[in-house]
């Protein structure tokens, strides 16, 4: 579609457009974040490490129960 007019186009309902298309920007962003699923896998790995570091085992309880069962408190 090509349009010609004497009145400026932003007054005719066509605002100025950026040079980069919106589709290329959004697709670029998506494909960067999810390329080969590296970043999601890496984030999952980091979350796993953090969870592991913060996990508190029953063995480490201060009551000195050693290998005590779950129901013992």
């Amino acid at each position, binding site marked *: 579609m090509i349009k010609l007019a004497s009145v400026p186009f932003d*007054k005719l309902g066509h605002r100025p457009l950026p040079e*980069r298309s919106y589709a290329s920007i959004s697709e670029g962003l998506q494909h960067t974040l999810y390329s080969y699923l590296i970043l999601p896998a890496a984030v999952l790995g980091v979350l796993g490490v953090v969870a592991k570091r913060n996990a508190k085992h029953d063995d480490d309880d201060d009551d000195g129960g050693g290998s005590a069962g779950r129901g013992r408190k």
Partner: protein
Amino acid sequence: MSINRRDFLKGALAGGALLGMGAEAEARPNKTMPPQALGLLFDSALCIGCKACVAACKRVNGLPPDPTSGENPIWDVPLDMSAYTYNVIKVYKSGTAVHKDQETDGYAFMKQSCLHCVDPSCVSACPVSAMLKDPVTGIVTYDAGACIGCRYCVAACPFGVPRFEYDKALPKIGKCELCRHRMADGHYAACAEVCPTGATLYGKVTDLMTEARRRLALKPAKRRSSRAGSWAVRTRATAHRRPSTSRRSTARRSWAARR
């Protein structure tokens, strides 16, 4: 949570590695126009606002009267594009609105319909490829059979073109498809077929661009006025040497839909 130097360094190293991985993927550039792409050329200076294109579009696409026309519409007067109106002529008015194609105290008409973008957002956003851009004709097509009604295209289009049938139990998207269903019969876009002034032309985009450049290069012609031999400056507006009603002497602007 306290952190020692060793943990901090490990975290910084891991974060840096993550950032480095993310920067590897390059954003794609804009897509390019198919060489045989079809399209429309709309010249606001030639449009007289008769809305023959709106009526013809409704007729050939079998569209009912628009709900925005009123409670019990006698006349189908759509105010905007909708699922039942693929093409509409809007008017710009300023001040006294007496001079055609003039920014102040003037008025101008503008056609609103699908622009069949070179790099369409609706096609990019559609998760089921119901919206596709034809690789040959460049027409942005819609496949109702594939559509799941998510309305991503409605949200994605920066021009508000795809419209959803909110009042239907089994809704579809409504948008201009450049009358591709009539091409087998040798017809082309109905809006361009019926336009009485040649304001809407249909053809290959390369040809239309040549015509648009030719029109933009036209100098406002001097024409002897019928009154007392005075000279009036008028815009030579048409490709057919038809004088416009405009007295504006500046050149026209072009607006090509890149996306």
